């Protein structure tokens, strides 16, 4: 008899799905079929699906069922379907980077993260939509993608966030149990916050980028978007690890062991009241204040901090601009850059070819100072807490350069933590933390390099005391 899965099943954490597989409540093939169909049917409603991988996933599922029949379990992800941002290559199938110029592009090999997930028995059921070329040129509208604007499952008149738009929307709508995204500057934390899911940006160099589209060699990171912090830990354990094919690889592995984190009573947490009073949107302040208070009550030593006065945003935009201009220089040279959907982004990439070498080197010198400043800050605290975004997702037709007006507050707080954390290569975890205007909000934890277990332990404890991560968006129309 064919197994039917109730709606709530598609929102279970990974451990519960795999427990049912191990208990032989259903086969991997049935699970894969159900999820792949759901992604194919509902993904287009959010412009979240770039390419279905239904058939290769079913083929792999047949072999995995043989493993389960013999009680051979490869990993906590064995038999679990997932989706991957279309910036990651999947052998023999299109990888189009969200951009019209790369329509029909096919690679011979899987990206390293996809190969690692395949080795762990996870099944990629689809490539998920993204902002074209990961948005490095500075796009003006959310529709900057060959698949259309990423729509938010909580309200399709709102944006899903970018550039990992499809990854955020698909996890939020229960179209995949987890997804892989990437972040250069905000591309995991933003869709995680806007879509109400948990997103982990790993330390620079922890996850191989081999087979991924490069936007900025010194800032690109790959990480998971999941329902829970624990799921992020399980996925990171599989995808982390050294890779000689990635020059940025740190050669480190990751084992998800939140139980060995130091007691919360000896941990020092830094936060800034300015983030919640002046930087956050007025409608979101109450939810952020409640979430911050709950986090601070987990038993930490609490300290008010602010970032040193450094030009974080200018340095980040210059480094990304220069590296991006070099990467996409052939598109500029032959005029194909103008095929991009968002003309502002095309203009941004063309203009970025005008940076001087001394601009790049100056930015990289200041980056060294930013790294030193962050190391100094983290000698006084173990974790920083700050809103992932100042407010809720913007409207789909609203220009992004108007959606978040520059904050005029004289207090710096931690408002530039996104730029600072990415420049210093620091890990960050975005947790769903409440709602404003019936849309989700996210709060971020940032720590020293390689301290993902610390972030995940705090996230796990926070999610044990809240149910924001268990909320489900309305069914699509």
């Amino acid at each position, binding site marked *: 008899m064919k197994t039917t899965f109730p709606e709530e099943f598609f929102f279970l954490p990974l451990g519960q799905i795999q427990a049912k597989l191990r208990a032989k409540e259903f086969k991997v093939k049935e699970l894969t079929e159900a999820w792949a169909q759901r992604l194919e049917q509902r993904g287009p409603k959010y412009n979240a699906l770039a390419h279905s991988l239904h058939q290769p996933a079913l083929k792999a599922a047949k072999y995995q069922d043989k493993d389960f029949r013999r009680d051979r379990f490869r990993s906590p992800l064995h038999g679990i379907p997932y989706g991957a941002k279309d910036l990651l290559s999947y052998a023999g199938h299109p990888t189009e980077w969200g951009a019209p110029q790369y329509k029909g592009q096919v690679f011979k090999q899987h990206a390293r993260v996809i190969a690692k997930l395949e080795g762990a028995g996870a099944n990629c059921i689809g490539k998920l939509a993204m902002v074209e070329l990961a948005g490095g040129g500075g796009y003006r509208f959310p529709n900057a993608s060959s698949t259309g604007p990423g729509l938010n499952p909580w309200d399709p008149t709102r944006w899903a966030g970018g550039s990992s738009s499809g990854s955020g929307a698909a996890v939020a709508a229960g179209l995949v149990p987890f997804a892989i995204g990437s972040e250069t500057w905000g591309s995991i934390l933003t869709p995680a916050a806007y879509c109400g899911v948990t997103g982990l940006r790993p330390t620079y160099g922890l996850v191989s980028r081999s087979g991924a589209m490069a936007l900025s060699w010194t800032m690109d990171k790959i990480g998971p978007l999941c329902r829970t912090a624990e799921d992020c830990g399980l996925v990171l354990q599989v995808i982390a690890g050294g890779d000689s094919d990635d020059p940025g690889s740190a050669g480190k592995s990751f084992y998800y062991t939140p139980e060995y984190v130091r007691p919360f009573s000896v941990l020092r947490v830094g936060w800034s009241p300015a983030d919640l009073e002046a930087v956050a949107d007025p409608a979101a302040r109450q939810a952020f204040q409640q979430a911050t208070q709950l986090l601070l009550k987990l038993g930490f030593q609490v300290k008010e901090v602010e970032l040193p006065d450094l*030009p974080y945003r200018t340095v980040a935009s210059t480094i990304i601009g220069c590296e991006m201009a070099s990467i996409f220089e052939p598109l500029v040279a032959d005029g194909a850059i103008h095929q991009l959907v968002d003309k502002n982004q095309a203009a941004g990439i063309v203009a970025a070819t005008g940076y001087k070498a001394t601009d790049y080197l100056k930015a990289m010198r200041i980056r060294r100072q930013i790294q030193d400043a962050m190391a100094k800050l983290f000698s006084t605290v173990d974790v920083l807490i700050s809103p992932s975004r100042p407010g809720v997702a913007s409207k789909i037709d609203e220009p992004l350069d108007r959606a978040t007006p520059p904050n005029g507050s004289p207090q710096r707080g931690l408002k530039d933590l996104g730029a600072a954390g990415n420049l210093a290569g620091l890990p960050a975890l975005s947790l769903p933390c409440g709602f404003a205007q019936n849309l989700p909000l996210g709060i971020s934890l940032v720590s020293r390099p390689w301290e993902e277990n610390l972030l995940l332990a705090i996230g796990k404890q926070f999610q044990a005391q809240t149910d924001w991560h268990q909320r489900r968006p309305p069914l699509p129309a």
Partner: protein
Amino acid sequence: MRRRDLASLLLAGLPAPAQTPPPAPADDLAAARQRVQTASAELARFAVPIALEPATSFKAY
């Protein structure tokens, strides 16, 4: 463009449409170039110690 479409255009004596889409509007490009110049000027104003080396061999921290 298919060969058939091109032939019908030639027969009709009409100019063939451009094979590449139009570039970004000039004001978008001017604004983007202005942003690059502003960033460049801000970086130039920021003083750094002469011995400070760039983070070209990048590691976290």
